[in-house]
C-alpha cells in the first residue's frame, strides 16, 4: 500500500490517454493507499472531475492562464507547491517531451530517484521494482528508487487506465501558488507542427508498397495510412524500376537499409534484396494476396488478402485506436 501522486498532462484536448494509463497504474499499485492527481493547465473543471472518475482520491489543480502552454519553470513551480501538501511515496507521470524535463528537474530538486520510460512495475518484498529499457531497448534494467516521493515516468500504450466509474468523485482543491515573477522562460509560440515528410532512414514506422500496388496512383492509400501513423512511405525495387516511386524511396539491398520499429509491407513479395533492406525492423507486418509469398516468412504478423481492401480498413482501424 503506497501513496502515489500522478501528474496528468492537460493539453489542448484534455487529459492525455497516456496520463489516464499512468493514473490507472497508480491506482493499481496504491491499493488502498491514496492516489492524488495533479493537473496544471487552463480550463480544468472537466479534467478534474474525470480524474476522480478514473481513480484519483484527490485532485490538486493549478488552473490559470499562465499554465495554458507548457512552461517548464512555471509548471515545476506549481508541481513543487502541490507536493508540499502531499505525502507521496511515488510520483508518476506519463512519458512525454514535457514530462521528461519536468521529472528530471523534480528528481534533482527532491533529491529522489527517477525511473524513466518504465515498461513494468512490480512489487517485490514490499518495494516497487521498475523495469525500463536501455540501449534503445536492446536490454532491460530493473531498479528500485530511493527518496520520497520517488519518480517514475511511464511509457504510453502499456498500462491500463481504470474503467471509468461514474459514481466516483475526488476531493478537488486548488494548489496554493505564490507569485510567478521573474520567470526566465517565455513561451513565444506553440503551434501544431507542419507534417514534414519523415525521412525514410529515420522513420520509426514505414509503410511500403511493391509490385502489388499495381500503379503509382495507388500509393495514395499508403500515404494516407502513413500520414496517420507519422510514417514514411517506402517502395520495393519492382515499384521503383517501374517508375512508380523515386529511387530515394527504395528499400532494399541496392536502396536504403532501414530498421524502424514497425514495417508494413503491402503487395511486396519479399525477395531477398528487399529483405536485406528491412529485415532488422523490430516488427514486420505483411499484407499480400499470395499466401506463399516469402515475405510471410519474416513477418511477425501476416494478412493474406487484397491490399486494396485491407489497407483502407487498416487506416480506419488505426484511426479509431489512436484517436
Amino acid at each position, binding site marked *: 500500500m503506497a501513496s502515489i501522486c500522478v501528474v496528468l498532462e492537460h493539453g489542448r484536448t484534455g487529459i492525455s490517454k497516456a496520463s489516464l494509463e499512468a493514473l490507472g497504474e497508480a491506482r493499481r499499485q496504491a491499493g488502498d493507499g491514496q492516489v492524488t492527481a495533479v493537473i496544471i493547465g487552463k480550463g480544468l473543471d472537466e479534467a478534474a472531475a474525470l480524474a476522480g472518475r478514473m481513480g484519483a482520491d484527490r485532485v490538486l489543480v493549478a488552473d490559470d492562464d499562465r499554465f495554458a502552454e507548457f512552461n517548464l519553470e512555471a509548471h515545476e513551480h506549481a508541481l513543487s507547491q502541490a507536493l508540499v501538501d502531499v505525502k507521496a511515496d511515488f510520483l508518476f507521470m506519463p512519458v512525454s517531451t514535457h514530462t521528461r524535463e519536468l521529472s528530471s528537474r523534480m528528481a534533482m530538486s527532491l533529491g529522489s530517484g527517477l525511473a524513466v520510460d518504465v515498461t513494468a512495475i512490480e512489487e517485490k518484498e514490499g518495494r516497487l521494482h521498475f523495469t525500463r529499457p536501455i540501449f534503445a531497448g536492446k536490454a532491460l534494467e530493473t531498479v528500485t528508487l530511493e527518496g520520497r516521493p520517488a519518480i517514475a515516468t511511464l511509457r504510453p500504450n502499456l498500462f491500463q487506465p481504470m474503467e471509468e466509474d461514474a459514481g466516483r468523485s475526488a476531493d478537488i482543491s486548488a494548489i496554493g501558488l505564490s507569485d510567478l515573477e521573474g520567470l526566465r522562460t517565455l513561451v513565444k509560440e506553440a503551434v501544431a507542427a507542419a507534417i514534414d515528410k519523415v525521412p525514410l532512414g529515420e522513420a520509426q514506422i514505414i509503410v511500403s508498397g511493391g509490385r502489388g500496388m499495381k500503379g503509382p496512383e495507388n500509393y495514395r492509400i499508403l500515404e494516407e495510412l502513413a500520414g496517420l501513423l507519422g510514417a514514411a512511405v517506402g517502395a520495393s525495387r519492382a515499384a521503383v524500376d517501374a517508375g512508380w516511386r523515386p529511387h530515394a524511396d527504395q528499400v532494399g*539491398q*541496392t536502396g536504403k537499409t532501414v530498421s524502424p520499429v514497425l514495417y508494413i509491407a503491402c503487395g511486396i513479395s519479399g525477395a*531477398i534484396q528487399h*529483405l536485406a533492406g528491412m529485415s532488422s525492423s523490430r516488427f514486420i507486418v505483411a499484407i499480400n494476396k499470395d499466401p506463399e509469398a516469402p515475405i510471410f516468412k519474416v513477418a511477425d504478423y501476416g494478412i493474406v488478402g487484397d491490399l486494396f481492401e485491407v489497407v483502407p480498413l487498416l487506416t480506419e482501424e488505426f484511426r479509431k485506436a489512436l484517436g
Partner: protein
Amino acid sequence: MDFQLSEEQNILREMVRDFARREIDPVAAAGDLEHRFPRETLSKAAKLGLMGITVPADYGGSGMDFLSYVLILEEIARSCASTAVILSVHNTLACGSIHKFGDEEQKRAWLPPAASGESLGAYMLTEPGAGSDAASLSCRAERHGEGWRINGSKAFISNGGQAGFGILYARTGPGEDSDGISAFILDMKTPGVIPGPEEAKMGLNASSTVMVNLEDVLLPENALLGKEGRGFPLALDMLNYGRIGIAAQALGMAEAALEESLKYGREREQFGRPISEFQSIQEKLTNMHMDVEAARLLTYKAAAAAVRGEKIILAAATAKLFASKAAVRCAEEAVQIHGGYGYIKEYKVERIFRDARVTEIYEGTSEVQRLVMARQLLDM
C-alpha cells in the same frame, strides 16, 4: 610488439570512415558508371586536410605520419578505389616528392596549394615505350637559356586530366639508361603541356588517366627537383612510398569485397538455408579473411617502418605484391559468392572486381615487385 593504433589514429579512422560512408558511398557507383571525376568529394576532403596528409603544417598540410596516411587511404578505398588512387598519387607521389626532395623555395611554392586542394598533383614517369623498363624513358629535357625545353610523351598518367602540377621525369644527360634522368616540377598550365583524352579503362573509372604530350615545354631553372641527372634514384625512392599507398588501396578493396560477401552470404538463401552455411562459401570467406588480415599486417608493417625512417624497399614491395593479389583474389571470390548478382552493376562487388585488377599493374607490376624483392633477398 604492440598492434594497437594510437588514440589519434582511431579517431582519424573513425572520421574518415564516417566521411567515406556519408560523402563517398552515395556517389561511388554513379561516379564509376558515368566516369565522373569526384571534384566535390575532393574539395570536401581538402577541408578536412586530406589533400596534404603528410605535408608539414608549416606548408599548410596536416603533418600526419605515414601510417595514419595509410589508414586514411584504406578507409577511402573501402568506399571508392578511384577516389583512393586520386588521393594516393596526389599525396604520396606528387606532394611527397616535393616534400622530400624539394628545396625551401619549391616547397613554399608548391605544397600549400596542393595541400589546400587548390592544385591536384600528378606523377609523370611512364611513357608509351617505357613501362616496367622505366629507366629507358626517352622524354628529353634540353638546356634552354637558364632553363629547360622538354619534348616527349607520357602515358597512363593518373590525375593527368585534372592536375595543376606534376612531377615529370625527363632525360637530361646522354645515354639511355637510369643515369642522366632528371626530375622536374611541372606546372600543367605551361604552354606545350597537352593532356590527351581520358582513357576508357576497365575500372577506376571515376579517376583520370591520360596520355600527356609535351611539345617544346619551357621550364625555368628552379623547376629542377633534386640534382640534375639524379632523378631516377628519386623516382625509385618515391615509388617505395607509393607502393605502400597502393597496398593500402588494395587492402581497402579486399576488405570491401569481404564485407559485401559476408552480408550477402548471410542473407541469400538457397536450398532452404543462407548460403553462408555451405562449406564451399565458407571456404571462400575464410580465404578472403586470411588474405585481408595478412595484407593489412604487411601494409601496416611497411608503413610503420617508413614512420621510423627505416629502409622500406623490401617491405613496400612485399606489401604491394601481396595486397594487390589479395585484392584481386577477394574481388574474384566476392563476385562468385554473389552469383548472378555479382555480374550486375548495381552490386558493389562488380565494380571492385574491375577496380582491383590494376593494382597488380601500376606503380610497378607484380613481376617488377618480385624483381625488387629478389634483389633485396639475394643482396644483388
